[in-house]
């Protein structure tokens, strides 16, 4: 069943078009990696899917009872969060915002949900810790738990491993795979081609070249083979760059 269908999307800002005529669909349980050069419009695409900004043209349809606000979003970390005095449980609980509705405070059920997701990601013993005292990998787990509170169906991850060391990066990928195996659809922006090809089911390549299809087809395609050949140094470079920006 299609959870997300994008047709002829044109993305960008007022007078700058980043990408045009973008069509793809995401099925239930899919694992899609979005790949492309810096400035190709990957983050813009993600923001458009989340309805944080409007597409310049084209349509996005949500299926399977999914709405934009029921997608779990893992944004890139901001400067503000670095020294934010908030406990892990406060951050995770804030993922239940969409269940607040007209209520002022979180329900017991929301609190249970937050607890459950902390256990799911193995961070329940950190519940009282301060977010700013955690390591990069632990912080990403917290934000992932928060994203899970917002959704039962789909996760949107914006470079979830940027700035993490190789060991923690692998743990993060395995964690995401586990969630995907449990039936949650994953859409991820990534600079790490090697891991994308290893874990994803479908690849969406935007920018200078366009590709949408299965991983097997991507390896054979022009876009894929040129990227994969230069993958080890190129992927390494862009990864460390992503880390530095933060």
């Amino acid at each position, binding site marked *: 069943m299609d959870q997300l269908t994008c047709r002829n999307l044109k993305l960008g800002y007022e007078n700058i078009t980043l990408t045009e005529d973008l069509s793809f669909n995401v099925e239930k349980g899919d694992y899609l990696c979005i790949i492309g050069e810096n400035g190709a419009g990957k983050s813009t695409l993600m923001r458009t899917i989340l309805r*944080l900004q409007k597409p310049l043209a084209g349509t996005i349809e949500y299926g399977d009872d999914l709405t934009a606000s029921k*997608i779990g*979003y893992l944004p890139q970390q901001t400067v*503000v969060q670095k020294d934010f*005095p908030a*406990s892990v449980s*406060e951050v995770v609980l*804030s993922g239940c*915002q969409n269940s607040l509705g007209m209520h002022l*405070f979180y329900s017991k059920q929301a609190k249970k949900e937050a607890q459950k997701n902390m256990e799911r990601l193995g961070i329940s013993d950190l519940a009282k810790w301060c977010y700013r005292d955690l390591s990069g990998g632990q912080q990403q787990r917290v934000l992932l738990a928060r994203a899970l509170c917002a959704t039962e169906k789909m996760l949107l991850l914006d470079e979830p491993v940027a700035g993490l060391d190789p060991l923690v990066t692998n743990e993060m990928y395995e964690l995401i795979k586990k969630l995907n195996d449990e039936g949650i659809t994953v859409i991820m922006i990534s600079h790490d081609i090697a891991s994308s090809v290893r874990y994803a089911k479908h690849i969406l390549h935007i920018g200078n070249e366009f590709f949408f299809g299965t991983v097997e087809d991507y390896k054979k395609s022009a876009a894929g083979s040129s990227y994969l050949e230069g993958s080890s140094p190129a992927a390494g470079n862009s990864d460390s760059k992503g880390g530095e920006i933060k």
Partner: protein
Amino acid sequence: MNTLVTYLAYPFVRYALIVGVLIALCSSLLGVILVLKRFSYIGDGLSHVAFGAMAIAAVVGLTDKMVLTLPITIVCAILLLWTGQNTKIKGDAAIAMISVGALAVGYLLMNIFPSSSNISGDVCTTLFGSMKILTLTKSEVILSIVLSIVVVVLFVCFYNRFFAVTFDESFAKAVGTKTNLLNLLIATIIAVIIVLAMNLVGSLLVSALVIFPALSAMRIFKSFRSVTVCSAVISVICALSGIILSILLNTPVGSTIVVTDIAAFIVCIIIGKIRG
């Protein structure tokens, strides 16, 4: 001690204490959000705007200056807080511009159209607060009490949403929280607090009231809730002791409160260091 008891017999001293505590409470609650949103300086900017507005009100000859200062400050707060990432003039530059501009225009107006014989005294009072204990009319006191209660109630009601929008605005927006509306609310509340607080400590010292308790609390506590509560407690204690000290030592009330806030900040740094 006897002096204090004698003073407390006067209604204007009791008014000053009540209003002082309420304003300190409100400003510290919002202060936590502003500091974390990287808007520490907005208090300063807005208070200068309020100074400019007050000068205009004096020139026009309004008896109740708040009628003019409050709306103007609210509009500026909304403009400053609402400017997104894509504006031509970035947040800090916009604040600096509006703040200095309003200060200059206000002072200029006061000089061109002098409303009293003692301009420098007037300016000094608006900038640094009353020289002695503040003298408030009963209607000012009632207005302050009502507005403070509204601010506290709003803060408690929207506590969870304020946290969400401060910690991660894009996430909050993505899951359907009305972040624009919340930012608007925060801007309005902060403008109200600043106009109220100007009476107490003067426009130059308003930021101290907003940021010091929040920064002090952040040294010690590790969760948003405890930081907020601690900030409110510190602020109220400092305001109370500051007002009382200013009466006993015969010092200007605004700067005395700020000095107690600084002292509390130093104490908190030490406690934070000891706790590791």
